[in-house]
């Protein structure tokens, strides 16, 4: 059976190759759908090969855990609505981080030095006795090299932070946790917790492999992930999820080194690098540094003088709005999270198709961070069947707004707020926006007069060329469709 390990290695090699090719295919709209299948085949090959590894025990348990995990995730991933995709990505990413931390924990526990170092009585966390008992029955394991130990601890730290942080992100996007959690001295506390976690990690890496230290290390790491994510507002969650995605990739790569598994190293590192770059692209699209997202506590300064805007919001009826667009030459539609919440993408596309039939040039303008994730709107519009050559990025469409007759803003707010350009005291000052105010007319579909997700007033709503069409996105789009049809009959 000496060929078996070689075969398993060959399978891992194939898996790594398929992952890279799959990701490459996913980076172009034409080949993207095939890309995930390639990567999926790679995953299947790697998992089957692992079952075939010769020195594996607990095969029954492994199979049971794999089946339960796959079934639960498959079922939840199938039935969830498209609008809930961002938090599902956060959830599954957190699971990956947790798995990496679990591997690190299992490795560390397996290498606990027995009977060499006694735990001092003064140490606050005493190990559970049954664990210590159980350890004495185990034959000695070959010690880890210092590099493997260090990377294993680092991977466990990153994985644990990604785990608890992603779960908080999931809870926030799911609406289970509305408020940002802020208290005085928060940054100092967070820093202290991180410092303590690192100190315990260094102790472990230096060879002080004792159960209480391991336990404290993981508790502190998980706590840091929790504390770090709590103060971050929902609007910044996409960047945070992307960051934790990169974290999990790194954790997987480091634990892969500890286990001597090249497929894990390559896949983890590719994701770590790709995720880091993607995070930077997202933060850049919001014109904010990553540090600002993580530690800025969005809106903390906005508590002072409330921004007063002169003028009033001017309402419009659906019939008038439909007429305006029916006889326009160029119409741009700007969707935002409100469209996603109202599930209005199908109605919006139906309306756009009617306009196109009348000879109106319709385009969809997508801000890089519209919705809860970059590309979130693209996914929803694609679901509704909008061909992607009608969808324009911010940089492409901004110069076209002055020649656009009507802009229909549906459920977007902060990404079209001109105060990002004009008001240096605004929390979103400096963020690039869709310059819709330059168009001849703007119609904003909005549920009520409240402020947007970030809680910031929007001067666009008070502009002279802006009319407000109040109502739920789905209902408003439906009215527009029926009014437009009524025009022709």
């Amino acid at each position, binding site marked *: 059976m000496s060929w078996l390990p070689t075969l398993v290695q060959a399978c*891992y090699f194939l898996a790594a190759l398929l992952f*890279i090719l799959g990701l490459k295919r*996913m*980076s*172009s*709209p034409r080949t993207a*759908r095939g890309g*995930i299948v390639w*990567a*999926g085949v790679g*995953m299947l090959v*790697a998992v089957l090969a*692992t079952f075939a590894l010769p020195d594996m025990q*607990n*095969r029954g348990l492994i199979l049971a*855990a*794999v089946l*339960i*995990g*796959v079934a*639960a995730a498959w079922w939840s*991933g199938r039935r969830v609505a498209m609008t809930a995709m961002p938090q599902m*990505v956060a959830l*599954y990413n957190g699971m*990956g981080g947790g*798995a990496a931390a*679990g591997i690190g*924990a299992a490795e560390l526990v*397996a290498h606990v030095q027995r009977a060499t170092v006694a735990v001092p009585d003064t140490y606050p966390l005493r190990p559970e006795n049954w664990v210590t008992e159980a350890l004495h029955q185990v*034959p000695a394991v070959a010690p880890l090299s210092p590099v493997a130990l260090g990377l294993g601890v680092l991977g466990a730290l990153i994985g644990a932070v990604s785990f608890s942080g992603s779960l908080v992100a999931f809870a926030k996007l799911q609406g289970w946790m509305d408020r940002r959690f802020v208290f005085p001295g928060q940054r100092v506390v967070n820093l202290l917790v991180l410092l303590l976690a690192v100190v315990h990690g260094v102790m472990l890496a230096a060879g002080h492999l004792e159960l209480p230290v391991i336990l404290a290390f993981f508790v502190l790491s998980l706590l840091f992930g929790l504390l770090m994510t709590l103060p971050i507002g929902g609007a910044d969650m996409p960047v945070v999820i992307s960051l934790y*995605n990169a974290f*999990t990739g790194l954790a*997987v*790569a480091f634990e*892969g080194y500890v*286990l001597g*598994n090249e497929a*894990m190293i390559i*896949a*983890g*590192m*590719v*994701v*770590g*690098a*790709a995720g880091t770059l*993607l995070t930077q*692209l997202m933060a850049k699209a919001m014109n904010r540094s990553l540090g600002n997202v993580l530690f800025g506590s969005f809106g903390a300064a906005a508590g002072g003088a409330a921004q007063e805007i002169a003028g009033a919001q001017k309402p419009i009826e659906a019939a008038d709005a439909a007429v305006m667009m029916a006889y326009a030459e160029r119409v741009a539609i700007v969707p935002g999270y409100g469209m996603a919440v109202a599930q209005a993408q199908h109605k919006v596309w139906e309306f756009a198709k009617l306009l196109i039939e009348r000879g109106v040039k319709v385009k969809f303008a997508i801000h*890089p961070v519209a919705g809860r*994730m*970059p*590309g979130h709107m*693209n*996914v929803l519009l*694609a679901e509704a069947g909008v*061909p*992607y*050559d*009608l*969808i324009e990025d911010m940089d492409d469409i901004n110069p076209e707004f002055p020649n656009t007759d009507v802009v229909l803003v549906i459920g977007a707010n902060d990404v079209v707020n001109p105060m990002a350009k004009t008001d240096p005291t605004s929390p979103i000052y400096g963020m690039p926006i869709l310059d819709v105010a330059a168009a001849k007319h703007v119609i904003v579909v909005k549920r009520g007069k409240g402020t947007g997700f970030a809680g910031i007033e929007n001067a666009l709503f008070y502009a002279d060329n802006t009319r407000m069409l109040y109502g739920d996105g789905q209902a408003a789009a439906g009215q527009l469709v029926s009014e437009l049809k009524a025009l022709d009959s």
Partner: protein
Amino acid sequence: MIDGFVALYIFMLAAFTGHEIIARVPVILHTPLMSGSNFVHGIVLVGAMIALGHASTPFEIGLGFVAVLLGAGNAAGGYVVTERMLEMFKPSAGKPGDKA
């Protein structure tokens, strides 16, 4: 076990590969790609299986079992979500070209 410097080379080259793959991606694909890379680090499942396969004490077995559960969730969930997102990318009839 991989030699220290060979591992370092693997780390470096893999990092460049990941960077290159993302460097010129249209915004339209950011979410699916994040989801896709989320699926790819589901390879952690393989590591969790190895950890559970080598576990001997009840505590280690418990840890390994949870790790495999979570890893399987990451892999399966990541695949389903990414596939559902990408299913919706239908190229329009007129212009099949890529759009950046």
